[in-house]
């Protein structure tokens, strides 16, 4: 065994942990704000905007972001209530058990392509040089340096680690409900456990199709496959929807929020919790949204890849027809990859919030019916079809292989076009003026009209 040079991995690992956990926690906090403001915008409301930080005469409001900070402060200073007959040990342990698996889950998720530190920049007699690297292959050995994989723990078991940890979150919920000495909590815990059992199966089976296709359980290799071929959402469209539905069910969010259904169970398994212990459950839920978004991006939405962006630069090609080939330094492509990954995760988080605020909650029997009688057979069918297709395309003819390559490139082109159209449409939509329709009916409106519109004073309180 070669002696491990600690400087080569300790510092990068610490930085990777800082980035990953920092992103997770900050985005989870942002999501609590996003949930409120986005739902307000969807429902034609204003949303919370009054929390203020007064520094002398200067007032800081940041569009209601301070409500999150105020919530955090409140959690710390609230009474930490424990029911008299609760199991004190388990009651205190449950929030930790709910939170830890979520934090551990992000360890295997790759946030960018492998970085070769010795190839980022070089100082020569002519000045600084930023070299590019080849599209495929391992550069570390060839140039005598080492490689940094942009995942905290690039495990070979990859997705199996995720399967192992994803189900653990429910242990916290079940223990919380059991130890609270409260019937509502117990009902919530029961629902959480049975929901988890039902949907964990679908998660596993829907992802099984994906890693049969990719031929690996390593998450970074899955992303590389998607960069070279097509995104998982095109290769496994059914699995994408099945995984999305069960991921929402796993994070216990509407429409699958039966374990904490306010209208039925007060707040389900964390009814008895207060202060920061409640905060940890609350926060774990939002972090689960982020981690499920990360998984979705990694497995189905191309991870750090953008269409036509490869490790060596931009190559716009359909089949054998190369339109543009531009070599870009390794350092820029690495930065672009990380930014793209986190950008995609944020986009999926926003989409999850859309789902959460658009759909009504399932009834319990509907939830079970959906899980066992719709999603599970569908995922089994998906697995079967995937297997058949893989078998049929095992040794493709030259024409078929070329055709598949063109189809894959066309899917990349479609993604690029859709992203471009979305961005352009957003710019056009944002810059176009709003349409107005005045209805001056009644003396109230006449008074306001006489003053030239409703007056708005400075914000108080």
């Amino acid at each position, binding site marked *: 065994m070669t002696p491990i040079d600690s400087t080569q991995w300790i510092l990068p690992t610490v930085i990777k942990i800082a980035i990953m956990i920092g992103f997770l926690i900050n985005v989870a906090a942002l999501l609590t704000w996003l949930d409120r403001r*986005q739902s*307000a*915008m*969807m*429902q*034609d*409301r*204003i949303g919370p905007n009054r929390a203020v930080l007064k520094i002398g005469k200067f007032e800081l409001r940041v569009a209601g972001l301070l409500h999150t900070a105020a919530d955090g402060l409140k959690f710390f200073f609230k009474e930490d209530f424990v029911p008299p007959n609760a199991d004190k040990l388990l009651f205190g342990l449950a929030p930790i058990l709910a939170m830890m698996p979520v934090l551990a889950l992000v360890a295997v998720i790759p946030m960018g392509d492998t970085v070769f530190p010795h190839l980022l920049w070089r100082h020569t007699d002519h000045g600084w040089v930023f070299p590019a690297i080849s599209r495929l292959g391992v550069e570390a050995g060839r140039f005598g340096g080492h490689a940094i994989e942009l995942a905290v723990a690039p495990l070979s078991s990859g997705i199996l680690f995720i399967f192992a940890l994803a189900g653990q979150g429910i242990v916290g919920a079940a223990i919380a409900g059991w130890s609270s000495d409260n019937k509502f909590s117990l009902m919530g815990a029961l629902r959480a456990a049975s929901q988890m059992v039902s949907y964990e199966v679908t998660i596993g089976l829907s992802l099984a199709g994906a890693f049969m296709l990719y031929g690996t359980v390593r998450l970074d290799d899955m992303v590389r496959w998607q960069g070279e071929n097509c995104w998982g959402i095109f290769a496994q469209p059914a699995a994408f*929807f099945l995984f999305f539905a069960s991921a929402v069910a796993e994070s216990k969010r509407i429409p699958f929020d039966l374990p904490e259904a306010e209208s039925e169970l007060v707040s389900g398994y964390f009814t008895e919790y207060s202060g920061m212990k409640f905060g940890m459950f609350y926060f774990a839920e939002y972090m689960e949204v982020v981690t499920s978004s990360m998984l979705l991006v990694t497995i189905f939405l191309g991870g750090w890849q953008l269409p036509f962006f490869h490790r060596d630069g931009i190559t716009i090609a359909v089949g054998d027809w190369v339109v543009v080939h531009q070599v870009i330094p390794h350092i820029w492509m690495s930065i672009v990859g990380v930014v793209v990954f986190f950008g995609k995760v944020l986009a999926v988080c926003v989409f999850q919030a*859309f*789902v959460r*605020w*658009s*759909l009504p909650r399932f009834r319990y029997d509907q939830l079970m019916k959906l899980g066992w009688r719709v999603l599970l057979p569908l995922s089994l069918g998906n697995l079967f079809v995937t297997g058949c297709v893989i078998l049929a395309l095992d040794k493709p003819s030259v024409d078929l292989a070329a055709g598949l390559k063109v189809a894959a490139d066309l899917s990349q082109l479609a993604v690029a076009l859709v992203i471009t159209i979305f961005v352009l449409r*957003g710019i056009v*939509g*944002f810059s176009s*003026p*709003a349409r*107005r*329709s*005045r*209805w*001056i009916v*009644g*003396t*109230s*409106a*006449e*008074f*306001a*009209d006489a*003053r030239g*519109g*409703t*007056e*708005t*004073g*400075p*914000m*108080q*309180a």
Partner: protein
Amino acid sequence: MATSTFPKKPPSPTNAYVVAHVDPTASTQAYLPEIFKGLGVAMKHFFKNTKEMVRGERPDPVLESIAQGVTTISYPEQKRPYPERFRGLHRLTQRDDGSPRCVACLCCSTACPAQCIFIEAGEYPEGDPRRGYERHPVKFVIDELRCIFCGYCVEACPCDAIRMDTGLHAVPYDSREQFIYRKDLLLAAAGRDGSHETANPRHEPGDASHPGVTRQHITH
């Protein structure tokens, strides 16, 4: 009425209508197309409202209240003006010289069903042309906590001296004492249009326009 139920059903509001039962179609049974439709509606509202909030072009909450968009009135900062005939806090109208039009006839305090008006009448000093012709309020006190805002005082006033057209509602205060509105406060309050007078002209005794009998005409 063929059937009668007990307890009696309340009459349905005039704008109520029966929602037709929709037979399940393939698209509703498949669930996914309907989900995307719903998401589309939500996204349309989201992007439109976000754009207007970011650009600061929210629809006017009063003038464009029927428009699509965020038409919430942010209350303490934005207020919907009260309608023209809203009976708000009282004010005492002024004459041209700034003194109250009130002649302390006690009509308002007599008409007041809540007995919230107290007036102490006083005579004008000797030599004033108005002495013996009319009096003036030495004290004019309204207890706004007792007031029921019925407007009878305004109806009763023969001189258009008390009005409820300030367009302001009763304000919450800390103590009962603050709800006792005295003459100076009532005189200082302005009407909707900002004036302290009224549109009805006042004819002082001695004016050529004065329609009634003045002391000069009385020759006994």
